[in-house]
């Protein structure tokens, strides 16, 4: 297959950036999108040009490193995958494909298609955990958890922290990311102890870091490679309201 690529190039955080066009040919339909970019970069190295920088690591859809906005959609046109699991068979031969980095104030561009997502780490550091020290845990089976709650908690816990939800949202809201963690913890007895403090702290941090608010467009759910449901946002809102009610008492 042959493609024309329109790729966002930006030398650094302060550079204005621009689109550049490249052509790649004889690409196998079974190649992944990132393998297609590898081929492009090999071509650029051959011509003494600077390769396109993009974040990637596990290439099996679980590390959450890849972060490409392809033809106007986070992770491209296929459903429930990250860009590393997107294959060229989902494109038309001869198509022009536009590739951009995540676009959000809270995720500044580092270079080309690489962005800085450390804001997500900061939100987790604000309270996205159970405060239990090593060695002080009771026997794992001492607290039964209903299968339903465990499975639902797992759904939230499956978040890979890629940031597609933020990139998809017109407000660049991190609500789905934050909700997935708050919800996972609130559903489990181990996480309930700190549920209120956690909801307040994480949401405050999200606001502080420049993420927008949720206006219920559900774009995040549609683009989430792990198909995390917006119902977690509803649970987060309940947790947050309860926490506020309590702290105002």
């Amino acid at each position, binding site marked *: 297959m042959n493609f024309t690529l329109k790729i966002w190039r930006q030398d650094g955080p302060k550079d204005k950036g621009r689109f550049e066009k490249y052509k790649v040919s004889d690409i196998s339909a079974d190649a992944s999108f990132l393998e297609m970019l590898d081929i492009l970069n090999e071509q650029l*190295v051959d011509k003494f040009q600077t390769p396109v920088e993009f974040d990637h690591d*596990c290439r099996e859809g679980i590390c959450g490193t890849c972060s490409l906005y392809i033809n106007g959609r986070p992770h491209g046109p296929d459903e429930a995958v990250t860009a590393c699991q997107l*294959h060229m068979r989902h494109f038309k031969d001869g198509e022009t494909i536009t590739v951009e980095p995540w676009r959000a104030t809270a995720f500044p561009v580092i270079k080309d298609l690489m962005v800085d997502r450390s804001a997500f*780490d900061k939100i987790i550091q604000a309270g996205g955990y159970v405060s239990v020290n090593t060695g002080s845990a009771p026997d*794992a089976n001492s607290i039964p958890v209903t299968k339903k709650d465990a499975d639902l908690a797992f759904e939230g816990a499956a978040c890979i*922290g890629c940031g597609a939800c933020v990139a998809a949202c017109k407000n660049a809201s991190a609500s789905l990311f934050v909700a997935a963690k708050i919800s996972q913890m609130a559903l489990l007895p181990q996480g309930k102890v700190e549920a209120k403090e956690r909801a307040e702290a994480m949401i405050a941090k999200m606001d502080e870091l420049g993420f927008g608010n949720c206006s219920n467009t559900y774009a995040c759910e549609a683009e989430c490679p792990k198909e995390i449901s917006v119902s977690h946002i509803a649970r987060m809102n309940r947790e947050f309201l309860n926490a506020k009610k309590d702290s105002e008492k």
Partner: protein
Amino acid sequence: MTKLESKIPEGPIAEKWKNYRDKQGLVNPTNKRKLDIIVVGTGLAGASAAASFGELGFNVKVFCIQDSPRRAHSIAAQGGINAAKNYQNDGDSVYRLFYDTVKGGDYRAREANVYRLAELSTEIIDQAVAQGVPFAREYGGTLDNRSFGGALVSRTFYAKGQTGQQLLLGAYGALSKEINRGSVEMYSRREMLDLVMVDGSARGVIMRNLVTGELERYSAHTVVMATGGYGNAYFLSTNAMNSNATAAWKAYKKGAFFANPSYTQIHPTCIPVHGDYQSKLTLMSESLRNDGRIWVPKKKEDAEKIRKGEKKPTDLSEEERDYYLERRYPAFGNLVPRDVASRAAKERCDAGYGVGPTGLAVYLDFKDAIERLGRDAIETRYGNLFQMYKKIVDDDPYETPMMIYPAVHYTMGGLWVDYELQSTIPGLFVAGEANFSDHGANRLGASALMQGLADGYFVLPYTVQNFLADKINEPRLSTDAPEFEQTEKGVRERLEKLINIQGEHSVDHFHKRLGKIMWDYVGMSRNKENLEEAISMIRDLREEFWKDVRIPGDIHDVNSELEKAGRVADFLELGELMAKDALEREESSGGHFREEYQTPEGEAVRDDENYMHVSAWEYKEGEQPQMHKEHLEYKDIEVKTRSYK
């Protein structure tokens, strides 16, 4: 010759760890604040260690190569984590997990370490559950288990096919908690490019900031490396793209011995290679062998027709299928250990029974399981894996059998460590896949997560503290010290040398060629002639690389080509040591199969008389490395021929 002191504590095996802890040195809380620990790597071992050190009150600096500690490659582990909880009442015990692990490792692991690992396994599950790790549960609310290769009990805890992710996020949560408390400072997008030695001890690191390209110096009282394995020496593996051996290799060159480099694990169930543009291989979890049955056609004609697309696997009746694992190993069947399953797949494909367009694939079939349990049950157990397969191969494994083939997955070898996980460099501790301990010549499935977390949560907090108990009067070291200056200079010069070559070929060009040599000659099946050939080919390739590699861009900038170049340069040295170790070990043990040493049926033949030892290699500048032996003694397990028949 340096003598390898494994420092195994006194007493019966079940009391050794307790004896160690009863007598070890401790540091009081005020002094802990004055002591600094560097942790490199934030996978299961690194993140859990850093969090636990922080909780104890030490000052911790932790580094990762990724943009966030949550993305370390432990995240990709699928199937599960072993623990001797015996929740299933099926006869499991600490001893049995210990026994299975030593046997699975083909009697090439250190008994005392493995026993401690089995002992600590139960605490890991408690810790993870307390952190909110959502393991699979039964309807009654208790934890569910499944079986993995090399065991006759169900002791594997799991969270769908994302167990590594969930455990890593648990450890990442603990790490985040400590970062928030201020006990741990986190540095991401940093790559360790050298170890700084002061008076013969590890006292710091040189990091390259992967965003600015600048070199940075960090000092501490001790350095813990949890930097993963070296499977990417093969280019194609299930490792992440950025997984590399550079940190370990630098430590080796500073005096840390490298143990058993030839012990690599080729995992039997990966999606087969489909093109030369391919960048990595994807694992299909071993847990699938709980319900999937592995087969190839009984008749070569059928295999040929399938390869040509004239027949489909579903056209073949039961009688026309050869369930070769069940046939060869009736006791363990499809759940034989990885090395055994991989070799059996290769044997069938080499004999002409392979399927898929290349003939290098076998079937993993869920037809019977779907008939027995229903499609929904299979979806609950393996849904994400089936989805992943479908996305990659564009074929529905609910309808037609999966095609799989072995691929490089894990390295049992690594930096040599004693019982305390300290390398031959004082003050340098090594944890997780980066060290060689516990798995011998072959790792059992669901044991890597167990080892990483045992090392990080429950071993290092004790042993590192024991080391630091002697350092309470040691002042902090300035990074202006000449040792830092000197080491940084060496790193800078090497980077400049690399970027100034400006040759004809890209880094990947060389990496792929190295990978092909490694896979063909130092892969699943090895022999003297090929290994000698490999050593000479790798030497030539290394020379060519240093004359002809082309790296565009600047040192003082984001430059992933430069990053890769440094790693490949190190793989080109490590690859030779892997081949050398494989050549020297004239026996077949675990993942190391020498064609000269096999039974007429093709089973591996060990040589306990001459090779029941760890081969630990010492770097010698300008000379051949020197091999030291740590003899292995088995007092609590009877050494037998490993049989799964």
